[in-house]
């Protein structure tokens, strides 16, 4: 069970709702109303939610490195850290 109580999009106040909407645009979810739990974990700090989402976008999508190479880095860091996420 998460150690922080998430505020999901449907319960968000105006500032957080704007952050969720911006996050969806940033993450390219084709307008679908999804909010990954890792992003909801920042729901008490909309500025951090946006920083994390935009930072993730720049690292994961920007530039020219092939997608498979990026996924390999992510997978290996998770594996080596024994992180199940």
């Amino acid at each position, binding site marked *: 069970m998460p150690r922080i109580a998430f505020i999901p999009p449907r319960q968000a106040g105006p500032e957080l709702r704007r952050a969720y909407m911006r996050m969806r645009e940033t993450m390219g979810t084709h307008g679908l109303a999804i909010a990954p739990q890792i992003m909801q974990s920042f729901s*008490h700090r909309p500025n951090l939610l946006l920083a*994390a989402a*935009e930072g993730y976008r720049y690292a994961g999508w*920007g*530039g020219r490195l092939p997608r498979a190479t990026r996924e390999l880095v*992510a997978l290996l860091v998770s594996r080596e850290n024994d992180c199940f996420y």
Partner: protein
Amino acid sequence: MDSHRAERFAEGLATPEEMSPEERAIEVLVKKSVRAPARLEPADLVPLVGLLGTSGALEVVAMLGAFHFVTRVADLVAIESELPIVQRRWRWLRSLGVRLQSRVFRRVMDLANEAVEVDVRMLLAETERIRGASLPSGYAAMHASPNVAAWAYRMTVELPSLDAAMLGRVTRGVAAALPASEDESTGFHARPPEPLDALVFVGTRYAARTTDEMVGAVLAAYGWSDAELTDCFYAIGSRNAFERVDRLLAAPLNGSSAG
């Protein structure tokens, strides 16, 4: 990457013979970033610069930093997966869940690379200002990789509830806890007695071992709200990213030309 190969890498079954030179170099770098990050140095990037060019190596560094951040936040908050079907306990269910999750994300997210056009000089100057310290000289190579400069800038945020003293404490705690050997990243070690210092120590060395009791002790000591705890987790995660990135970029990147 196809799901069969991804699974072999995830389970640690991929042999050096079946990896490309780039994959081998990435695995070596990632292992050191987890097992002995205190000893990371610019020389660790030389093989990647040779194989992927300066911008490719920097993009690997950004992903590495991004996922040291993400995995720490996930383990500090206690998020195991985005889908309930992804279970740690049974391998077949875990495998099925990971494939399903991958398929869902591929359907709902645009996975194509995109060009990033930003003023790198301005972003690095602003990153330096927020940090209150000079950036390592290797950051200058980010002029070849605007997305990496944008990542570093975006992740460097001011945390309102952590004053300078508290932020300094987290920063120093992460740097001091960084493992310098495999034993330090996997063994059992005495934790600092103070609850926040203990959380920073565990969150840095082996965040997957974070317990409700450790976080509860911090909340009892400081009376933090969820928002303040969020700041604390963000600080631990981002410091873990940048302690590694800064060591790798402690000197100008040499090797091939950009990109």
